[in-house]
């Protein structure tokens, strides 16, 4: 293998850059798609249920029941609608207009008075939305605990024996899910851009036969690969910084890391994403198949298996093992840490190591595949 001639490399990069700038579809993928996707992720994906619609049925109209209801209404997380019967509110829940309901049964106040019996309360949630159902239960439960303590205090009784939790969310005190979802979604976006862009554009060169022409010229393999990687790397870097700028300034996500570390980790990740795109296009050599492969090998895993939305620890061991193979996983962790916690080196270094290995793997494999074509 011959060395690299910088004159040739410069010429190739210039040609590639001109081609990128001229092609409207690559401009759309690199500059418009990321911003649009970021807005969709930023506004559309939100796991924080506040103002949950919950029904309430009074089968007991005593002042005690009303006082309990007041504690529900006072909860900032619940929006209470009162229904007249269980059946009516159950129908509302079935049709999705409320996410759960609370029933204060007839004997509530009666049993509250009697020390030998516990006053019953019934909470029903719509299990078809499991995450929301969890939140309904949690919010009603804490309103209920608050009511019990308030009641004891009002009557000058000793507070009931309770054990409460006092949660403190580090890095993200108000526990807003978008603060970690947006940094994670940048990973999904960068994966799509890196893999889709290179796979489509290089596949087009194969389709049109210009790749063979290039291979037949005195250009070396290293030059060829670099000339494909460098311009797209620059393009990817620009979209990464656009994404981060939009997240910080328009979507208001705090960024606690340094730009230098962001650049470093972003470079390693782009190396693997571009490498994957190049590999796909080298193997498929057909735009349509390349796009479908990029979608299946890059977009879906980045969405599902990266830990950006779904906790990797909760997956079965086999799938957990598979997630180690996707570079998106490490970039998600690194981005979440960089945005929220800042430079926590043990976490970042581990991610960088894996990303470096992934980049070397994909670029190396592409180099191997390219040589085979030459012989």
């Amino acid at each position, binding site marked *: 293998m011959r060395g690299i001639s910088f004159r040739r490399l410069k010429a190739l990069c210039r040609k590639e850059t001109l081609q990128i700038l001229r092609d409207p*579809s690559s401009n*759309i*993928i690199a500059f418009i798609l990321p911003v*649009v996707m970021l807005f*969709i*992720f930023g506004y*559309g*994906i*939100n*796991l*924080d*249920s506040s103002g949950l619609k919950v029904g309430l049925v009074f089968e007991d109209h005593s002042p005690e029941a009303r006082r309990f209801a007041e504690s529900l209404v006072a909860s900032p997380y619940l929006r209470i609608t009162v229904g007249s019967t269980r059946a009516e509110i159950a129908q509302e829940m*079935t*049709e*999705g207009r409320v996410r759960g309901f609370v029933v204060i049964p007839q004997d509530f106040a009666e049993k509250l008075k009697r020390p030998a019996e*516990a*006053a019953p*309360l*019934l*909470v*029903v949630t*719509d*299990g*078809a*939305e*499991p995450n929301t*159902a969890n939140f309904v239960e949690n919010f009603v*439960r804490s309103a*209920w605990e608050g009511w*019990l303590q308030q009641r004891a205090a009002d009557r000058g009784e000793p507070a*009931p*024996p*309770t*054990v*409460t*939790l006092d*949660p403190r969310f*580090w*890095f*993200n005190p108000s*526990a*807003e*899910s978008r*603060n*970690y979802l947006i940094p994670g979604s940048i990973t999904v976006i960068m994966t799509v851009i890196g893999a889709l862009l290179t796979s489509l554009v290089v596949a087009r060169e194969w389709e049109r036969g210009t790749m063979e022409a290039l291979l037949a010229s005195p250009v070396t393999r290293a030059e060829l690969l670099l000339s494909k990687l460098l311009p797209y790397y620059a393009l990817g870097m620009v979209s990464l910084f656009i994404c981060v700028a939009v997240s910080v300034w328009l979507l208001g996500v705090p960024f606690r890391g340094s730009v230098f570390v962001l650049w470093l980790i972003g470079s390693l990740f782009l190396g693997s994403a571009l490498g994957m795109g190049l590999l796909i296009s080298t193997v498929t050599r057909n735009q*349509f*198949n390349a*796009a479908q492969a990029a979608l299946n090998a890059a977009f879906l895993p980045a969405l*599902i*298996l990266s830990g950006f*939305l*779904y*906790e990797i620890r*909760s*997956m079965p061991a086999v*799938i957990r093992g598979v997630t180690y193979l996707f570079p998106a996983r490490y970039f998600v*962790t690194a981005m979440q840490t960089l945005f*929220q916690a800042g430079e926590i080196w*043990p*976490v970042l270094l581990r991610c960088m190591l894996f990303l470096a290995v992934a980049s070397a793997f994909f670029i190396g494999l592409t180099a191997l595949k390219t040589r085979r074509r030459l012989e």
Partner: protein
Amino acid sequence: MHRVTTLIIKELQTLLRDRQGRILLIMPVLLQLAIFPFAATLEVKNNTLAVLNEDAGAESIELVQRLARAQAFSSVLFLHSESELRRTIDEQQALMVLRFAPDFSRSVSSGRPASIQAILDGRRSNSAQVALGYIRQILQGYLEDRNRAQQRVALSEMTVRHWFNPNLTYVRHIVPSLVAIITTISTLIVTSLSVAREREQGTFDQLLVSPLTPGMIMLGKTVPALLVATFQATIILSAGVFVYQIPFQGSLLLLYSSMFFYILALSGFGLLISSICSTQQQAFLGVFSFIMPAILLSGFPSPVENMPTWLQYLDWFNPLRHFIVIVKGVFLKDVGVAALLHPLWPLLVIAVITLSAADWMFRRRLG
């Protein structure tokens, strides 16, 4: 009629002719069916719980033992200092640290209210909140057991029932949603890419000059999509019932007839996309830019009601959002026709708008 049938047969042949095409129709479905239900879950399992116990009493030990048995936590890490606590959360060695104050056991055994500090990783705030919920339930059970042991009756008892999904398993949320998502992807790809391919190869002009009217051509492109999507949906439905053991509550007839309208609405979008695009690459990008927001805003990854109001209004035009409600309603809740009308009429409106827009675009190319 005969002409349309011929066109449909030809379309199906193009789809199923080569091995790669057949594989592309079935493999992604099976793969997603195998991975999604396990991976796309917001449940919290197998996590690590860290404990910083400054209390020497029996109550905190008893509680930690109960927590360690929970499915959410597969391992418990015992910490001994503040600095260890910081490192554990910083480096994500645990989802949360529970810190018991020195007087915890004393408070509990003397019947005073006690509290446990929970330090959570804000980078995974949803999982942390879900885990907090589990811990609250465990605490509740612990208090009830204590009361029972001391023959003391609690003032009030709360019973929680999760309808349609008693254990809140995610599979019951995912499989019905998957029925909707997969039909979306295949309908759009089949309709829009087949037109774009014909256009790229120049055969579309031949179709236009044939005795087929634009309406017939659209029908010829829609029916294969309908068949493919219904076939795939049936695979997922049967897998949901027989493999994942989710009881099918509602009426199949209702589900399939709503699916028919859904696929109509979607193929309207597909045809519209393809009428704007002239190459397969453009069509692919068009389909991607439709599918991606459609899935993300469908209520599958996160509830529609958590979005800002303006986005909820905009999302009205997303047919997937309405169809997921229908599939879940019929599959899990056995809703009747009356309840289905609410999500069904937007689908009809969307189908009419998109199909007539596509028809207009095709005619315009003729003139």
